[in-house]
């Protein structure tokens, strides 16, 4: 059997894949956080809850309406995005003029409420959500077996990340967004509806989180707690990457996911905390974060 650093290649690649998958979710979530923060100057603590909502919406759609995975992947982000838009319009938008910390506290309360409601309705234990039939089974890559669904997650989340990056960096809407980030008053003076832009951005961020949630549903179980478990790690990712750049968020997400996976191979006890340790080291060396322009 092939060995790498004294570890069977099979195990090594397996953990690398898990790292890559976790990294995909970190990237998708920190990307959404960065997009929202860039324009709204709000750290969306409810991002984890929206991720969980995505998974739940997909599961409930299947249970009650028989809507399959593929439609759920499209519909759940729209549903959660609309929910986010309503929240932003009615409540969150009242806080922009205040200290940014109030936005954090508000979305923290929102996250607690959503999570508590789902725990009340569905209990704390996870519920399974089967991957679509087209993606069951595994492919033999020669050196390892790759479960098809996991391969799909890696590919599709990469596409989603790059798509969002293109949307923001290369399209006209993205140009408006970036301009509004720099100087909202001036952009509004040019006749762009900035409040609408803010609502759209929040909806986009929430939708991305929900998209990640649907992708995650067949891998992890659908549970009300899945969001709060991941969001703190994503915060650490965001601190490492700095929220100044979209690409920075994506790259950092994948990097830290892989670092976490590799730690599981070499020193499993530390795999829970390795991302936090990396965060501490980055704070010592580059306080503004790897890609940070700092605010």
């Amino acid at each position: 059997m092939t060995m790498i650093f004294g570890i069977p290649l099979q195990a090594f690649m397996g953990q690398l894949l898990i790292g890559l998958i976790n990294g995909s979710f970190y990237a998708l979530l920190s990307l959404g956080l960065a997009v929202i923060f860039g324009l709204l100057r709000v750290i969306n603590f409810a991002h984890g809850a929206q991720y969980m909502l995505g998974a739940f919406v997909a599961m409930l759609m299947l249970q009650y309406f028989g809507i399959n995975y593929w439609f759920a992947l499209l519909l759940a982000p729209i549903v959660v995005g609309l929910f986010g838009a309503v929240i932003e319009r009615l409540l969150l938008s009242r806080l922009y003029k205040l200290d940014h910390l109030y936005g954090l506290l508000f979305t923290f309360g929102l996250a607690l409420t959503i999570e508590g409601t789902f725990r009340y309705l569905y209990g704390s234990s996870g519920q399974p959500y089967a991957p679509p039939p087209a993606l069951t089974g595994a492919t033999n890559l020669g050196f390892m077996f790759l479960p098809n669904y996991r391969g799909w997650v890696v590919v599709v989340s990469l596409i989603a990340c790059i798509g969002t990056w293109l949307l923001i960096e290369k399209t006209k809407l993205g140009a408006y967004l970036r301009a509004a980030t720099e100087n909202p008053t001036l952009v509004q003076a040019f006749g762009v509806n900035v409040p609408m832009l803010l609502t759209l951005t929040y909806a986009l961020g929430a939708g991305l989180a929900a998209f990640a949630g649907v992708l995650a549903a067949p891998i992890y179980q659908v549970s009300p707690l899945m969001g709060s478990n991941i969001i703190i790690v994503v915060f650490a990712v965001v601190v490492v990457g700095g929220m100044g750049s979209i690409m920075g968020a994506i790259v950092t997400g994948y990097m830290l996911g892989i670092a976490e996976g590799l730690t599981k191979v070499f020193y499993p006890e530390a795999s829970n905390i390795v991302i936090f340790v990396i965060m501490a080291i980055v704070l010592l060396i580059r306080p503004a974060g790897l890609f940070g322009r700092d605010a």
Partner: protein
Amino acid sequence: MSHVVHSTTTAKAARTERSATASKAYAAFLGIGLVLLIVAPLFFYPIFLMKLLCFALFACAFNLLLGYTGLLSFGHATFFGGAAYFTAHVVKEWGVTPEIGILIGVAGAAMLGLVMGFFAIRRQGIYFAMITLALSQMFFFFCLQASFTHGEDGIQSVPRGHLFGFIDLNNTTSMYYFVLAVFLIGMIVIWRFINSPFGMILKSIRENEQRAISLGYSVARYKLGAFVMSAALAGMAGGTKALVFQFATLTDVGWQMSGEVILMTLLGGIGTLIGPIFGAGLVVTLQNYLATSQFPVTIITGVVFMVCVLLFRRGIIGEFYASRLGRKLGFEHRR
């Protein structure tokens, strides 16, 4: 010119007079509050009261940082829960007396505060909050795996022991007055701290960090000092709580606990000395009330959070100070 001078003197005189009323009102409240705390065990379940005092001290310690330095820590559970573990461990395994146990808890929490503060003060605002949250989560995982915390079980049946070696704290009344004493000591320390020159500089950092820097204060050091102080006092509350309930568990180091203490402070009034006490009272009462029902506390907590942020950011005491009655009594409230 003389007119201006005259009017400022009058304004100053009026302000002194008003603050004189305010300090009279404060003294009256203080007296009433003390009497109520002393006779409270006759009317309420003492364990509930002790829990309340511990959380009130915890919230006041937290407010030292948020309210007086303007730093939002999302990781204060580390100091509260960490100290609970330290105190529980040394009291149970080393057999030290309760007051030494709490002191060790305080020292441990201060050390943790020094480490976390060292990293967190490198960034500001929202990043500060996220860093403290992440480091606190790291400490949570440490507690989950370390052997002395006994993982999911926690440290159980911690003896309350004898205060100074001869006052039996298994007697609930003695325990209550011990906790009350700890609470009062903590409050006096906080009061003294925020009214010291150090505390004034902290307030100036809160109001305008750039200007404090330009005045030559090494802001980072003051922030770290405030962080350690706040952590130590939170540890005092946590260590005491471990003795009251005779256990220390993972609940106390989880991020939910950090959220709870923020809520208590926000609800009572950020930047007011006594606000967090009221906030803690409300939250603890609510939890006790809901503990027997199926309805999860988190929903209520979350809704209260949102309502507070949207509608009354000054908190109960802050709103009172800003109200007509409060102003008439001469309280000033900013922020």
